């Protein structure tokens, strides 16, 4: 809540009345001193040395008194003031007859200090700057240190210490246009530790924080409205008032119009009022204005934004209050971004991902390692992944170091694990960009995932929005970019997931968005083009957990859903988390074909581990045996990709053993029967189909053998978790 000027005034008067000394000090009604601002022809150099010619043209004040006004300060102070269009320049000379007694500390207020108070328009919402001889700075809007771009320099000489300050107007708290007048309140103050004197140019009677007793700064020709607008944009959370503003999107590119909705919570009258909606660019220039009259409680307007250049815009809705003097304001930040035309078309249609109109079965791998192994990852690991037949790489967070490092203020400030994440990033030699470039050269794809910038349940600040925007705009045009992965296992955050999905699509409508969940698909079905779950059964649950997940997903999404469903498969062990070992090759193959048999149209394996991890951990993490086997498995998946993606499902196929999971696909006249033994025991069984009679000879893919069908039955033996894929070639005798 903002304290109104009126309330603060009352408060000040009360304090003043209680604190006026009775022995002839300055009184509350005494005239205030005045200083006239002078425009600088050139900006002074901020180096602590006041010999700069720019100061010769400055206004100056001296004759500092104790803050009570009782008498002049025993050690005198002189101050200078200049300004240009962007900054206010202040200099102090603090004379001191015993400079050795000067004290300063990392805490600005322990020891000698100079303080500046600025109150634009005398609204009582003042800005406070304090500097000590060490050059330590405190900057606040009334109270509470805040970020700023103030520059200061100090210098200690034999009989004085000096301070120079350059204060950007954008950092000085500016009132709304109607809330403040032309003159500013200003005070220049000093605390001398040795003499224990608190002195100032305009005595404040009760301590420095008394804006009613600040002196008067005249003639400062500054565009207060511009700076107020910029502050409104930068500090959106401060402006939750009786009106609110919403837009249909955050990011606009090809859209010709912006839908703006302004709601008014006021129970008063709207009679005679005009609602103003304006769009202000980053320089404070108003680019669009819409006046709405008569005003409703909810006002929906379409703003033509077709001619707006790319950039950040602050939409400001203003409505005069019933007292006529003040204005209720609400602000929202939106962005216009350039449209782009991707090199490759990537769409999800009928549950299948198409790249350049060709069906694409992603065989993806999470490219991450145990956290302590990131420093060993290098380009050879990427080569190894590609050599194993993976066609999609999912680089995890440390590789976004170029996007995350240096922005810890927005993604790591409340995160206790942030320091170790930062360290890992610093040690990682690969980057998302280098992985994308390598992927392009080797003709594989990348799923983009930038956690931390946009993850978390809290509302995204404009800083986070912009950081995420920059990352997406940076990578969206890369030819290797396949999809965006928006979040991982955020099942309980459907609103967050949907919000992220919308933001991704606003910035990059040409790439599908993928969301991985533990299982809560129903509440998140609107939050992605591609959904996946990650059943990890090995060592914990029956292997059919994989197929059960896919069945459930298809039921939730509906068989005719345009959305695609992928499965994240276990390629790891983790004893501390309850997975005693990684899958063996037979289990991995069985999980893979179970997922495909039941309708998964994309596969992602969790997770890559570098050679040193494989050797250290054996099958506790990722075994060398399984890793080597992945080349063969991926070759088989690739060969089966079109029958799975485009083939016709053949119904009513069954086996004589219930432990067998069976699917059949007809593609280009060939019939593929894929049978998975879902147990670790050997099974002897026959497979038959009532929809079409199977006959003749079936080739067993990838096994260099054939089976002869007898009475429409495929009879075979299945070792534990074995998968047999039979193909009855066109013209080989299958009857339709």
């Amino acid at each position: 809540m903002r304290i109104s000027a009126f309330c603060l005034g009352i408060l000040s008067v009360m304090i003043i009345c209680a604190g006026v000394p009775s022995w002839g000090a300055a009184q509350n009604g005494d005239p205030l001193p005045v200083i006239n601002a002078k425009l600088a022809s050139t900006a002074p150099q901020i180096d602590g040395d006041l010999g700069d010619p720019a100061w010769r043209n400055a206004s100056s004040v001296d004759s500092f008194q104790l803050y009570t006004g009782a008498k002049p300060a025993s050690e005198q102070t002189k101050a200078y003031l200049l300004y240009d269009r962007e900054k206010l320049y202040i200099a102090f000379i603090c004379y001191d007859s015993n400079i050795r007694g000067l004290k300063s500390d990392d805490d600005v207020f322990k020891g000698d200090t100079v303080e500046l108070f600025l109150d634009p328009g005398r609204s009582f919402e003042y800005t406070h700057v304090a500097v000590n001889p060490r050059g330590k700075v405190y900057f606040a809007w009334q109270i509470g240190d805040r970020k700023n771009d103030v520059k200061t320099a100090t210098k200690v000489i034999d009989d004085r210490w000096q301070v120079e300050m350059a204060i950007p107007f954008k950092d000085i708290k500016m009132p709304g246009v109607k809330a403040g007048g032309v003159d500013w309140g200003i005070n220049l103050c000093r605390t001398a530790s040795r003499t224990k004197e608190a002195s100032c140019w305009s005595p404040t009677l009760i301590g420095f924080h008394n804006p009613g007793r600040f002196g008067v700064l005249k003639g400062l020709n500054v565009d207060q409205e511009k700076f107020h607008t910029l502050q409104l944009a930068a500090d959106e959370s401060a402006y939750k008032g009786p009106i609110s503003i919403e837009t249909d999107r955050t990011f606009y590119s090809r859209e010709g119009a912006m839908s703006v909705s302004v709601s008014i919570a006021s129970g008063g009258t709207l009679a005679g009022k005009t609602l103003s909606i304006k769009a202000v660019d980053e320089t404070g220039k108003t680019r669009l204005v819409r006046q709405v009259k008569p005003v409703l409680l909810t006002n929906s307007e379409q703003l033509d934004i077709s001619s707006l250049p790319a950039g950040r815009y602050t939409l400001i809705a203003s409505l005069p209050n019933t007292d006529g003097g003040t204005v209720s304001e609400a602000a929202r930040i939106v962005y216009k971004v350039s449209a782009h035309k991707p090199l490759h078309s990537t769409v999800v249609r009928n549950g299948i991902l198409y790249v350049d109109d060709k069906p694409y079965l992603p065989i993806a791998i999470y490219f991450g390692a145990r956290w302590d192994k990131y420093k060993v990852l290098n380009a050879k690991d990427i080569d190894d992944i590609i050599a194993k037949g993976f066609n999609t790489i999912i680089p995890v967070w440390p590789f976004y170091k170029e996007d995350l490092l240096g922005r810890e203020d927005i993604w790591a400030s409340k995160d206790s694990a942030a320091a170790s994440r930062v360290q890992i990033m610093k040690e990682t030699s690969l980057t998302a960009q280098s992985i994308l470039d390598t992927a392009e050269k080797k003709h594989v794809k990348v799923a983009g995932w930038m956690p931390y910038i946009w993850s978390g349940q809290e509302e995204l600040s404009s800083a986070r929005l912009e950081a995420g925007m920059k990352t997406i705009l940076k990578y969206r045009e890369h030819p290797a970019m396949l999809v965006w992965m928006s979040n991982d296992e955020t099942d309980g955050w459907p609103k967050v997931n949907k919000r992220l999905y919308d933001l991704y699509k606003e910035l990059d409508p040409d790439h599908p968005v993928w969301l991985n969940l533990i299982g809560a698909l129903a509440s998140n079905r609107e939050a992605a083009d591609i959904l996946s779950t990650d059943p990890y059964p090995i060592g914990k649950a029956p292997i059919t957990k994989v197929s059960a997940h896919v069945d459930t997903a298809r039921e939730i999404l509906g068989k005719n859903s345009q959305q695609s469903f992928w499965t994240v498969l276990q390629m790891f062990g983790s004893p501390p988390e309850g997975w005693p070992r990684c899958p063996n090759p037979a289990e991995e193959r069985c999980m893979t074909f179970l997922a495909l048999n039941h309708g998964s149209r994309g596969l992602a394996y969790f997770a890559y581990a570098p050679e040193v991890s494989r050797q250290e951990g054996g099958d506790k993490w990722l075994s060398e045996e399984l890793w080597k086997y992945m080349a063969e498995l991926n070759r088989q998946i690739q060969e089966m990709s079109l029958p799975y993606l485009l083939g016709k499902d053949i119904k009513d196929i069954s086996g004589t053993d219930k432990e067998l999971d069976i699917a059949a696909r007809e593609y280009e006249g060939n019939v593929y029967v894929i049978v998975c033994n879902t147990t670790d025991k050997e099974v002897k069984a026959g497979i038959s189909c009532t929809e079409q009679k199977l006959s003749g000879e079936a080739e067993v893919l990838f096994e260099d053998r054939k089976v002869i069908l007898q009475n429409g039955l495929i009879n075979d033996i299945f070792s534990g978790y074995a998968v047999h894929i039979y193909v009855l070639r066109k013209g080989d005798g299958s009857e339709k």
Partner: protein
Amino acid sequence: MRRVLLLGTVILLASVTCCRAGTPEITISSTPALPMENLVQNGGFEDDLKGWAVANVDKAQEEGWKVEASAEAGIGTRAIHIAVEPKARNKSRNAYQSLGSLFPAHKLLPGQSYLVSCRMKASGVNTQGGEYCGAGASLSIWSAGYKDTSSVWAFSGDTAGKWIKVISKPLLCPEGGAGAQVVAAISYTAGEAWIDDIVVSEAYADMSVSVHGSGILQVLVADENGRIIDDSGRLSTGAKDYSKSLKVISAYRYTVKVVDKDGNIYQKDYPLPVEK
């Protein structure tokens, strides 16, 4: 809970403008009729724990929990306060009130859905054990012969020092139900909670809004959280009538606001259920 003084009629929140000539006539009707009935007696604990029972209260101190009336209130002057030490987290620690045997002395009707809502403030309470874990109010209905229980919970975990309103899912009253009970509880967690303003009522109501006047510019229906459930948008100049039927959840207070052609705003409330 604040005692409701105006019963049996729609409460008109008068503003200066609403009394002038030309004031639009706002009519709100509802099935069930307004105000709906809160089936809980002393749900606001203004009469301390009158009407509520606490089981095994003699063991409370030894087991590490307490249930008591409190002057810390969400609305009005009193609420119920429940505190549970970690050693007592293995059960629901509560005060309960029977809503009667459904047959014959029932308050709930078979085939109708009901919900429970409350205001609550909790500290150190978690909801990690599932939907029955947390603090707040719950509603349970027993099937015939007390064989099965169906329950819904208006529960929350720690509220960071704030009073919040919590509303359960609807619960369908079965044919032949044996009884119903409302409970104020900290359940399967340690912590401390203040619970107030417990309401059990039919879950849904069919609300009809009609406005008649000269020059209606906009009609807006919003719930107590400001969520707009109907917005006429800008009506054609000189509109004289507007009507709308809405299915609403009874646990919220709704407000109908009307803007006339001169910019005057008129409003009328659809009240919360009250104890009868």
